[in-house]
């Protein structure tokens, strides 16, 4: 039932694609809910999780979104899935707003970081994997078994509960559920961060294979640059809610242009022992109050000049991508 679609990697311009984000911003209001809201004084300033992000994901490609904790990458994933509404800006998936019932109609599915939390502990695996079909109508006989086989599980497992499975197997179940919806877009939010290395390899291979065989479009979110390098066609680097650099994966990892991307790449520990360099200025406090003016990264940037503190760099076209830095 899963139709194989041939994939043509199209060199689309920035404004075409299955997923299109235009100036997307999302604030969170940290003030108390309910009546306490009126009494809370001074009202805390809204937190900006995602700020003015524009990007596009061509059909059939994998867009890797990388950033550290608090960079807003998970929020961006939920915005694209239609689970959150943007405070401003426009999100289109297949030409439609993904919010509400549209997400299911378009075929947006998500794979989450914690596989145990993403499966209802009281449901049997067979019911979990067919839920997207059951929500629309009758589940064909044998569908659950076919899905389980597709993700490398035993079809006889359909009667078990999620707790009977290891983390890697639970993630396979979550992937089977996503597949049963015949999805066009799969958002993977740190799908292997909770898994061990050998299991991570199994799950990443499974996602790659299915993606290729089914021609899926994928938004792949991770803090792990090596995983992004492995999975993505195109990579966006998010820092404090802003896209600071975007390029084809090969270009970004070979020749990073933004100082933040460079710092991240230097800091990644490598098996050959040639990484793990702490690239911050001495005495720096990494986490982050957003810079009020100028470049968001300038308080941590080792090459920052006076202009970086006063003027916010625009995300402008650079070789094979875009970068938001005055000096790049």
């Amino acid at each position: 039932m899963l139709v194989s679609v041939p994939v043509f990697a199209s060199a689309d311009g920035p404004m075409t694609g299955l997923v299109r984000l235009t100036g997307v911003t999302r604030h969170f209001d940290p003030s108390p809910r309910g009546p306490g809201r009126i009494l809370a004084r001074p009202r805390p300033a809204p937190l900006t999780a995602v700020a003015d992000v524009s990007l596009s994901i061509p059909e059939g490609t994998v867009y890797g979104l990388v950033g550290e904790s608090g960079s807003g990458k998970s929020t961006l994933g939920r915005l694209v899935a239609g689970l959150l509404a943007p405070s401003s800006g426009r999100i289109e998936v297949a030409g439609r707003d993904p919010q509400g019932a549209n997400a299911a109609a378009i075929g947006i599915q998500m794979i989450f970081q914690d596989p145990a939390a993403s499966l209802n502990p009281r449901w049997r695996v067979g019911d979990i994997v067919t839920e997207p079909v059951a929500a629309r109508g009758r589940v064909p006989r044998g569908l659950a078994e076919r899905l389980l086989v597709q993700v490398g599980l035993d079809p006889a497992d359909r009667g078990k509960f999620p707790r009977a499975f290891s983390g890697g197997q639970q993630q396979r179940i979550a992937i089977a559920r996503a597949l049963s919806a015949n999805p066009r877009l799969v958002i993977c939010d740190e799908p292997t961060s909770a898994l061990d290395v050998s299991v991570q390899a199994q799950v990443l291979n499974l996602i790659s294979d299915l993606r290729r065989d089914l021609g899926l479009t994928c938004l792949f979110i991770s803090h792990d640059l090596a995983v992004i390098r492995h999975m993505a066609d195109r990579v966006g680097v998010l820092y404090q809610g802003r896209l600071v650099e975007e390029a084809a994966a090969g270009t970004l990892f070979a020749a990073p242009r933004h100082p933040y991307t460079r710092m991240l790449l230097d800091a990644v520990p490598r098996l050959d022992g040639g990484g793990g360099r702490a690239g911050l200025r001495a005495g720096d406090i990494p986490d982050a109050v957003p810079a009020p003016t100028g470049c968001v990264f300038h308080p941590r940037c080792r090459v920052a000049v006076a202009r970086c503190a006063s003027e916010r760099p625009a995300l402008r076209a650079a070789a094979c991508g875009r970068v938001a830095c005055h000096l790049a």
Partner: protein
Amino acid sequence: MSVGPVLSLRDVSVSVPGRGARGARALAVDRVSVDIAAGEVLGIVGESGAGKSLLASAVTGLLPPRAGLSGGEVWIAGARVDHLPEARLRRLRGRVVGTVFQDPLGALNPLMTIGAQLAETIAVHLPLSRSAARQRAAEALAEVGIPAPADRLGCYPHELSGGMRQRVGIALALCAAPALLIADEPTTALDVSVQAQILALLKRLCRDRGMAVMLITHDMGVIAETADRIAVLYAGRLVETGPVRDVLDTPCHPYTDGLVAAVPRIDGRPGRLAQIPGAMPPPGARPAGCAFHPRCALARDRCRKDPAPEVAAAGGRAACWFPCRSLPARTDP
């Protein structure tokens, strides 16, 4: 201090309750022997459930209530410590063995300023006046790279960032100048840029103080960057140990080999990752013979019957019947 290793584990086993209400006890750590010399970082790597944290707890005597040391000897700085009464162990912890935890928030008292916590810990170990202890606390913060340390003494843990909290955690563990530092996943909760700083700090402290460091992590990259020697645990057994470069460049045990090949490389070409089929069995459900044989492409009848022998390999040791054989093409069906 004696010339021998700071920490020496001899055939250490830790048993845990089996599955089910009255299951038989099972070995979660099975006859592990390792040494750590002064000024050396030993990286202990393994997947979740391999027994690496229990091994560390066996050293400090802080095993979870239902787990118990069921065999072997623990020697710290030339003295056997595994059968000491709790009161003597408590003196040992902190003074001879410092511990850094994964979650620094859990190790810090949220209601005390970090200055007070440091001064309190220092006062336990050194006969100092209050102001002298506070002075030492500021020095301890400076040593772990916290800027303006005197100003930070009045901060509460929640006012610090994750990286700063982990630095305080390290300062706390170093208060009494321990001979052995146990760091249990010290950077797992941190961002990659902060992780690099903390690892650099651990490495520097190890060299400057001549401390022995036991670094426990699931991240092969962290081990490769930080450790001098590596010990690979699988299903409670030590499957391979040796100098880190030797082991990672030419792994001799098929598990180590598979683990190294399964790591996505930031400089590598995208493609299929090598994968080890299956999953590690929990304690109590381990197969006879070599525990790795159901997942091993090299497994023969012998591996299914007899426990793997420990052999010298690539500057270290490996527990395998067929060590250092290149694996068949690493693709799965």
